[in-house]
């Protein structure tokens, strides 16, 4: 290990250091008491400082040729850069949107922020892995904090249930992933992703890749591995749900990008079909199930399933166009999904989460800005112009058409039309007159800034997508 190696992982190190600092601060402020007493936003400030430091360290590194470190384990290239950006955006917004909620529901702030930062570092490691060992560790670093975050509301039965279900199913998927790594290793004699391309095309390799897809597909909530999503989204405390909904997708699709278009291009004919079939099933099931939901968290869970299907279009299409579309979509998804959850986090119904659609009624009258942000995010999730969701879907469908997968683009477009109904239903309730009188709106400057940033991202990426488009296209230049 050299200083050059260490400087490569500087953003991850900054997050880990901030996580330890948040834990220590919490321990210091709590003393011997059973439960954390530090209700102030100190942990949030530390976490935010860590995220900003990581962004700064990411920014000062010149974008250029790929740099490989740690004896070929870790690569910092364009894809790493965009994945890091998406993960850090998720962490930053997640930290900014949650303090009012944490305070109201007495969640332990130190543990919450430490786990959030470590989970982000895990997603970043997945995006930078050049070896199955590191990909696996990134996946575990990503998912373990999410299990704990889901169960963090100790006084809520639903939260306990969500955490237990998430952990049992997640560990089950992990076992498949490990077995897949073993089979791929046996077939190719190496765990090095850059050397998998020369592996012989034997059944063992295909079986191993199938097991890897199960592990990553679980994290991304692809059909048929999505069964955990609605219950876990509904039961987990809402800030955890919001963060989990985006960071799991970022990590899982970063892993799929490293695996499919990059490491195993020789399997593209066989696996393109398979992934396309999964994408079609995911889009159809996610959107149809979302139509019937009256709980906003469950609705967003199925919407997350549907969006996983859309993003998988880019992986199935492969090539530079598909990969850059995936990266663009991940950035957009972070902004729009966290924006939507951020508005819900401001609401409270008689000491509980306001998670029913009708709780949003009359939001325009009481918190006009929040209602507008929610509407913008819903329009973007539905994929309508002039928001970022439209451009992102356009890139994905264009990549599918370039790869002659017309059916895939067609199913994507049709299911998007279906999704307009349920997204705009939420938006219209929020913009309608009348009021759900049991619902209170909590104002918070911290969360307000986060919401403004998310909304700005949704509009900026939708109206002037040029800069980010150039960034993601530059990121995938090495893929041919």
């Amino acid at each position, binding site marked *: 290990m050299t200083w050059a190696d260490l400087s490569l992982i500087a953003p991850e190190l900054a997050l880990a250091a901030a996580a330890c600092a948040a834990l220590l601060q919490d321990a210091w402020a709590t003393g011997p008491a059973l439960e954390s007493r530090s209700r102030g936003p100190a942990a949030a400030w530390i976490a935010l400082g860590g995220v900003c430091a990581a962004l700064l360290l990411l920014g000062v590194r010149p974008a250029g040729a790929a740099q490989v470190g740690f004896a070929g384990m870790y690569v910092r290239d364009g894809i790493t850069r965009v994945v890091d950006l998406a993960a850090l955006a998720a962490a930053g917004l997640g930290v900014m949107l949650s303090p009012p909620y944490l305070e109201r529901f007495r969640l332990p702030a130190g543990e919450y922020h430490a786990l959030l930062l470590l989970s982000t570092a895990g997603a970043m490691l997945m995006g930078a892995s050049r070896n199955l060992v590191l990909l696996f560790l990134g996946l575990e670093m990503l998912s373990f904090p999410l299990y704990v975050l889901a169960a963090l509301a100790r006084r809520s039965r639903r939260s306990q249930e969500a955490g237990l279900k998430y952990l049992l199913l997640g*560990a089950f998927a992990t076992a498949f992933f*490990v*077995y897949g*790594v073993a089979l791929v290793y046996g077939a190719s004699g190496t765990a090095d992703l850059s050397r998998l391309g020369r592996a012989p095309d034997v059944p063992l390799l295909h079986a191993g890749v199938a097991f890897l897809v199960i592990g990553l597909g679980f994290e991304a909530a692809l059909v048929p591995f999505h069964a955990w999503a609605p219950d876990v989204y509904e039961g987990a405390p809402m800030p955890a749900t919001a963060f989990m909904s985006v960071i799991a997708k970022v990590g899982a699709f970063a892993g799929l990008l490293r695996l499919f278009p990059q490491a195993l291009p020789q399997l593209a004919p066989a696996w393109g079909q398979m992934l396309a079939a999964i994408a079609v099933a995911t889009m159809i099931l996610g959107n149809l199930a979302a139509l019937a939901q009256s709980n906003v968290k469950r609705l967003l869970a199925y919407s997350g399933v549907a969006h996983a299907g859309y993003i998988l279009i880019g992986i199935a299409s492969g090539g530079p166009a598909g990969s850059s579309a995936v990266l663009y979509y991940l950035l957009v998804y972070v902004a729009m999904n966290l924006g939507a959850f951020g508005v819900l986090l401001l609401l409270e119904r008689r000491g509980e989460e306001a998670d029913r659609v009708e709780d949003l009624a009359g939001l325009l009258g009481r918190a006009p800005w929040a209602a507008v942000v929610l509407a913008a995010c819903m329009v973007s999730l539905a994929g309508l112009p002039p928001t970022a969701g439209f451009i992102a879907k356009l890139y994905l469908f264009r990549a599918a058409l370039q790869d002659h997968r017309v059916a895939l683009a067609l199913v994507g477009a049709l299911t998007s039309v279906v999704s307009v109904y349920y997204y705009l239903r939420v938006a219209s309730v929020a913009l309608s007159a009348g009021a759900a009188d049991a619902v209170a709106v909590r104002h918070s400057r911290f969360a307000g800034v986060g919401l403004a940033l998310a909304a700005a991202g949704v509009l900026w990426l939708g109206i002037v997508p040029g800069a980010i488009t150039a960034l993601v296209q530059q990121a995938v230049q090495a893929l041919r």
Partner: protein
Amino acid sequence: MPALTHYLVLSALLFCLGLFAVVTRRNGVAILMGIELMLNAANVNLVAFNKFAAPGAMQGQVFALIVITLAACEAAVGLALVLAAYRSLETVYVDEINVMKW
């Protein structure tokens, strides 16, 4: 002298037993044990492949070490969750844990 195939067969059978345990058992603790079985099956594969298919580097054995670490972590968090769920839901049976529809 046992060959690679023998180890792979042992591992495949163990994996299936673990799978069966996870799918059929209702007790959260027993499900975690099934998952441990599956992880062990993968470890047998990794170590066997390391000796028979790629003896040049220690990738398989190092990965097996990391899987053992993971298993320890999983047992700690998993059992803490089972305990916490038992305290608030008063059951360890996953099919009785259904405040929300499963």
